[in-house]
């Protein structure tokens, strides 16, 4: 089960040279700077762009090679465009039914009422797209794509034109869909925050070339990539809710290297969640701190030290249990504590963002 991509494209101002296999399950994020070829690659997968030299295979079906080109309408892909793309001549219900009506009954995997409920668009059904806000339009566009029962859902920066409130609402709905549906998704983004919340795999695309491809945490914490120099560099860990402490309004989650206290969540124990730890929120100590305000202290081993973009700071990759965690500390502290690769120490984590999963 995979999406195999061999795409070579050369234009005057731009080239794309991609050769990789994406797993056809979960969410694969394609991350990179604007103009790096993310959208073009997605359009090639959908068949909206016909590139001369391409070999694209989805599971056991060849979508494009030297001899054949399966047109978009026969690829059963859903596509959510960056900006509003609702049909102006139809109301919301008409838009939703457009794809649904074109799927044979026995192939339908999403019901109309399900899609409407997931995206919370009951109240909008009789509206025209001109009457909707940006966030509402994207919710309808996502529901419409799902209703065409795609085997692969392609999302091209669906949140980029939205305000912050709509963004976070839609992000939560996308998380929910990822967990509820077994439809593989490819999510193009230039927001690391969105990637950390949604992605299982990460593909870094730079100037039309694959810079890295792998599981999210592995790519986020690779020190040879520019990604971990980003201001909000960090890692994402899988965790399980253990118990709640109503008195202090905390929840405890288990990770491979211990347990973490996070802000209270109404989630049942046993529930799998992902937690995000930013490099700037991690400090280091040689001994377990006593009488400290920091609750989360984990035994860690130094894997690697690298220079940061800021000359005063260093990035340190730590092994915490089976997870990789990044810490951003000053060079002065590294020298004073004598931190080197292989050192055993304690990572103190100031704040942990818990992301529903």
């Amino acid at each position, binding site marked *: 089960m995979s999406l195999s991509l061999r795409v070579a494209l050369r234009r005057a101002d731009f080239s794309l040279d991609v050769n990789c296999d994406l797993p056809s399950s979960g969410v694969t994020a394609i991350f990179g700077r604007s103009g790096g070829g993310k959208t073009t690659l997605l359009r090639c997968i959908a068949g*909206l762009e016909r590139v001369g030299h391409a070999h694209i295979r989805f599971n056991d079906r060849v979508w494009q090679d030297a001899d054949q080109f399966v047109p978009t*309408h026969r690829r059963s892909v859903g596509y959510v465009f960056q900006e509003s793309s609702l049909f102006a001549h139809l109301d919301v219900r008409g838009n939703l039914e457009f794809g649904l009506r074109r799927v044979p009954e026995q192939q339908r995997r999403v019901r109309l009422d399900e899609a409407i409920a997931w995206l919370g668009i009951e109240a909008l059904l009789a509206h025209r797209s001109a009457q909707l806000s940006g966030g509402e339009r994207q919710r309808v566009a996502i529901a419409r794509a799902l209703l065409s029962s795609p085997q692969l859902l392609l999302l091209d920066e669906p949140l980029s034109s939205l305000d912050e409130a709509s963004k976070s609402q839609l992000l939560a709905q996308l998380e929910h869909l990822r967990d509820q549906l077994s439809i593989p998704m490819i999510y193009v983004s230039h927001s690391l925050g969105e990637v950390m919340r949604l992605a299982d795999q990460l593909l870094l695309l730079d100037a039309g070339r694959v810079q890295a491809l792998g599981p999210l945490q592995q790519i986020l914490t690779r020190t040879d990539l520019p990604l971990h120099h980003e201001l909000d560099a960090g890692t994402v860990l899988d965790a399980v809710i253990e118990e709640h402490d109503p008195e202090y309004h905390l929840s405890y989650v288990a990770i491979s290297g211990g347990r973490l206290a996070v802000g209270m969540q109404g989630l049942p124990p046993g529930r799998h969640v992902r937690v995000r730890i930013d490099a700037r929120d991690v400090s280091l100590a040689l001994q377990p701190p006593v009488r400290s305000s920091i609750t989360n202290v984990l035994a860690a081993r130094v894997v690697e030290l690298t220079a940061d973009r800021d000359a005063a700071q260093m990035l340190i990759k730590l092994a915490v249990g089976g997870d990789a965690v990044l810490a951003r500390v000053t060079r002065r502290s590294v020298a004073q504590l004598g931190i080197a690769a292989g050192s055993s120490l304690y990572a103190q984590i100031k704040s942990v963002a818990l992301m529903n999963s």
Partner: protein
Amino acid sequence: MTSADLVALWISCQLAILTTVLLLLLCTPLAWWLARRDSRARVLIDALVSLPLVLPPTVLGFYLLILMGPAGWLGRALQALGLPSPAFSFSGLVIGSMLYSLPFVVQPLRDAFQAIGRRALEVAATLRASPMDRFFSVAVPLASRGAITAAVLCFAHTMGEFGVVLMIGGNIPGRTQTASIAIFNHAESLDYGAAHRLSAILLAICLVLLLIVYSINRRLRPAGTPV
């Protein structure tokens, strides 16, 4: 109002309806092609389609008459097939009117198709619509206002046509004499009363037609979009 005037009016209406229907059918694929191709051939076809806008109607009518006459290749070809020559006949009027009103149908349709853009059709493709399906379920409804504009312009333009029908049709009462030619005849013979009556009827037809179109356009416009 004489019965000859009524017949002339009826011929004008038949001519306008037939011309409009035929042109809409023929020009929709042409306009679709023009809207989506950007080639050298497009420039030439655009220019040819627009030619009747600038050409004096008498020039167009004259060339058509030569072409359709017994010595013209179209006339000869039709004669060889055993068909009557279209010169000085109703079918000749239809051919002339179609050429004369061509730009009034092609241009609004082409502009309407162009205004749809690529995105809506791409979306339809990702929702499993085949090219033909996309044309009828997305392009045509989104271009419907352009089609209405084209139909009205074509109808009104054909109703008011004078030079071309005079050259090709030859002003034969009951066969090729249209209302606009009848008005000219009345005015020339100083029968201003008859000219007045026929003119008023044409004026009323055109006004009612435009009222219908504008009210349809108002209803078709999605709420909230600017006029």
